[in-house]
């Protein structure tokens, strides 16, 4: 059959037209006209992504009866989907179209117009060759399940569960301990402004427990997960009774597994035992929550308190963001309990990010809390030895020592990451899809990370994340609506597969399974994200990625690098 390829070059206003000779491109690619096999329709246009531009393209495709389409314009990141959308409204299969980037790759970066034009011509010729090797692909629609599994019953998980359940999504909330609320439920007051939070948090817990759309499963952990956005199957297991396994069908997951504290007793500079008057800030919080006062082990109110910041910060390699404020909050608390208490804060750097923090810090200083900036500090029981920034050495005995250890990933985080197939940041917390642009999503569609599972942060930021993840899920999974899985996915060529299983190891999405009978790898198309890792790892060429097959890439490349 004779092929008829439309090649349309977008001027992109002056962006492309000013620095690339579009007429020359048209002339060059028109030379490929071959009366027998190939007809080229090559034309320039002002702005193809505009409403008029899209209508023009539709008209051109239909009127010329194009069998293939090449567009020379901007980055596929900008408008690939725009033009795929245009094709979908015509008789042309969108996978018989190719967008060539002559703006970022040519017009914008090469100052010499002749050279930019030459490169653009090579690229467009590459696109022309490639598109002739492309194949039609057809999209399928899949039903989705809008229910959600929330992992972790702390304040992050609670907020996510409520935000989803209030929008009529069924939520399964699993928590490994025997109660909801996590660490935040032990706080008497919360930052930044010392509001009493006990009631507010208890109310949230009660709402979760009573909510008709939330099923709370305490003493429960995640065992196994398979599937993809809209269609996950999770197995959760009772921690007390290993026989008790529940299978859940869900469409998305929120990971809110929280944090642990750096173990200060492993630090060589902090020598203390359980009998010493040395506490973590979290232990003081719990003490306040339980009996509304802070006392030493002998039951007396401390007359002098040392507060030591940044315990383990050097070791973990990051600032935990909230400890400075949490410690200042506790310093204030000691002063409220007894204004005569000597409170000394030993810090190296202060992190006061919130707009109310500075005023609070000033207020505490005015109340007589002493801030000592130290270069080095060590404890032996409640005896403190320190060196100030100007190298003066000091040694003092206190009634009580409060440490602010760094926040570290919760126990079991690596195991959970493996089960979920999501990555960890080098600090050991869960890794987001994009730190700045996509902060609550992960590389796996349908799995979100919120709260301190994602890294150190306060309650306010945690709740914002939980609400953000819930909104994302509500938008992505609408009850009754279907989703269109990616069609540019991998497939195995049975005859070539040697069954070495390398592809299974490099697939981050669990999209490849091994057929033991045939001894070959098989791609689960609905799970595959089309990243191409398996293709790159397969020595036999037994896996190919649809729309990015070797011949397609090769044909484009040999033309582009001529």
């Amino acid at each position, binding site marked *: 059959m004779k092929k008829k390829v439309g090649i349309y070059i977008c001027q992109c206003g002056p962006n492309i037209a000013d620095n690339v000779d579009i007429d020359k491109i048209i002339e060059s690619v028109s030379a490929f006209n071959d009366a027998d096999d190939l007809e080229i329709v090559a034309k320039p246009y002002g702005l193809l992504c505009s409403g008029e531009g899209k209508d023009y393209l539709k008209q051109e495709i239909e009127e010329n009866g194009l069998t293939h389409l090449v567009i020379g314009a901007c980055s596929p990141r900008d408008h690939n989907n725009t033009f795929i959308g245009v094709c979908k409204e015509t008789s042309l299969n969108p996978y018989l179209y190719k967008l060539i980037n002559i703006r970022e790759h040519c017009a914008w970066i090469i100052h010499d117009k002749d050279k930019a034009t030459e490169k653009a011509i090579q690229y467009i010729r590459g696109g022309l060759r490639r598109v002739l090797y492309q194949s039609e692909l057809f999209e399928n629609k899949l039903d989705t399940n809008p229910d959600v599994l929330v992992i972790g019953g702390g304040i992050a998980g609670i907020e996510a569960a409520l935000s989803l359940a209030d929008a009529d999504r069924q939520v399964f909330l699993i928590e490994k301990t025997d109660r909801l609320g996590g660490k935040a439920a032990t706080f008497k007051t919360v930052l930044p402004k010392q509001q009493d939070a006990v009631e507010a948090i208890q109310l949230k817990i009660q709402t979760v427990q009573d909510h008709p759309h939330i099923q709370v499963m305490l003493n429960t952990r995640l065992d196994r997960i398979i599937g993809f956005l809209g269609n996950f199957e999770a197995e959760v297991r009772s921690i007390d009774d290993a026989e008790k396994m529940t299978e859940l069908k869900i469409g998305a997951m929120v990971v809110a597994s929280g944090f642990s504290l750096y173990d200060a007793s492993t630090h060589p500079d902090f020598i203390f035992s359980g009998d010493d008057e040395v506490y973590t800030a979290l232990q003081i919080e719990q003490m306040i929550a339980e009996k509304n006062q802070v006392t030493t082990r002998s039951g007396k109110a401390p007359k002098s308190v040392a507060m030591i910041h940044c315990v383990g910060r050097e070791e973990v390699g990051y600032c935990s963001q909230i400890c400075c404020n949490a410690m200042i909050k506790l310093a204030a608390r000691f002063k409220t309990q007894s204004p005569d208490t000597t409170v000394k804060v030993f810090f190296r750097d202060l992190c006061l990010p919130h707009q109310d923090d500075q005023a609070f810090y000033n207020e505490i200083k005015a109340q007589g809390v002493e801030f000592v900036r130290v270069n080095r500090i060590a404890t032996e029981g409640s005896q403190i030895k320190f060196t100030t920034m100007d190298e003066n050495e000091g040694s003092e005995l206190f009634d009580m020592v409060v440490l602010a250890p760094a926040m570290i990933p919760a126990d079991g985080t690596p195991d959970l990451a493996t089960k979920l197939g999501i990555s960890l940041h080098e600090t050991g917390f869960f890794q987001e899809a994009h730190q700045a642009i996509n902060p609550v999503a992960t590389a796996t569609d349908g799995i979100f990370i919120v709260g301190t599972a994602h890294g150190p942060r306060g309650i306010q930021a945690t709740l914002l994340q939980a609400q953000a993840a819930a909104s994302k899920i509500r938008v992505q999974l609408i009850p009754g609506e279907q989703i269109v899985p990616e069609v540019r996915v991998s497939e195995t060529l049975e005859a070539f597969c040697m069954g070495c299983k390398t592809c299974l*190891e490099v697939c981050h999405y669990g999209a490849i399974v091994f057929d033991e009978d045939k001894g070959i790898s098989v791609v689960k198309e609905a799970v595959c994200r089309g990243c191409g890792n398996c293709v790159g790892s397969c*020595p036999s*060429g037994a896996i190919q990625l649809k729309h990015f097959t070797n*011949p397609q890439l090769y044909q484009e490349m040999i033309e582009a690098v001529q």
Partner: protein
Amino acid sequence: MSTDSKSGGRIPIENGIEQTLRKVLKESLKSDLIDALLLPVKVPSGDSYAWILMQDPALVEEEASPMAAVMPVQGAKALKSLTRKGNGSLRVAAMMRPCEVRGTIELSKLNQINLDNVTLISYDCPGALPLSDMSDAPQDTEEAFMGLLSERNFESTAVKPVCQFCTEFSMGAADVHIGMADPDTSQLLLISGSEKGTAFLSATGLKVDEEPSAWEKQTDSIQKKRIQQMDKAFQTIQPMVEGFDNLADTFSNCIGCHNCQSACPICYCRQCYSDSKESSLESAYYLDKAEKRGGISLPHDRLMFHVGRLSHMSLSCVSCGQCTDACPVSIPVAKVFSYVAAQTQQAFEYKAGKTAGEAIPLKEYKEDELKKIHEMTKSAESQESPHE
């Protein structure tokens, strides 16, 4: 798998090393631990060896050449052909050179060999002689090799070029290892490398209670010399490899027979991409290229074949030298591959086939490995003069 504290036992050498070893193997086959042996046997014409799966103890005593002078088919390939589809309940002991054991370990990681019920036996290898020596002068070659063994000569320049600088000539992941480097030439030292190995040695009636420290000292000293040899060899190989023009020169007389790939134990693909129809293009492409360059050689992409193979298998290359033995036009393929493999394996802190537990780099991602490779590339670039 090798363990840190090794133990071994000895038997007196009677009627030569080969005959002594045949007896040990025969005993193992008579025990109820081993069903069959996989070992080299001289072919009827006497100028080569073939891998034979043997079940008859009498035949072992008469025919086996457990330490063969040359390596016609890499042992890993023989074992692959036996166990590619699983190994069922067949209990096999395979007698191999250390590089064959390494090839075996690599293939087992790639799911091409099943090591269930397989006992691997290796020995301190003085190096294999070139395959062509054996076909030219079978008897001389065999005598020469037996001479190397009985004299404990690990510095011969008669062995294959890559064998001369092989640093992994001794015990690796084998279950049983024969300490041919041991100073005591009157006895054969057999060392256990695993529980399987200890069971094997006990089945042959050997008492395994000796710490082979003299042997360890000897192999260490040989290895030091081999490392020096390797450094020296790499200095001469480097200019053959680095830079496109040098590499093209090295492979300029390649006839495209792909024997190197067929002989390679690691190349396990059913069909090589370079032989597939996807690798050839329309004639117009070649014409166009010929016009631009003034001429191109055909079949095209002969160098690409080698570069492709390097990129596919150098992380698993065990430097056995089979590729050079197989090359009809005497290209030093093994030297090139061995040199490149040393660099790529170093980049991932990996030694192909050394231990069974270590995942092949392609299957395992470590975040810092990219940084390291980037640094290596940068330092290589700064040493090299820029080329097109």
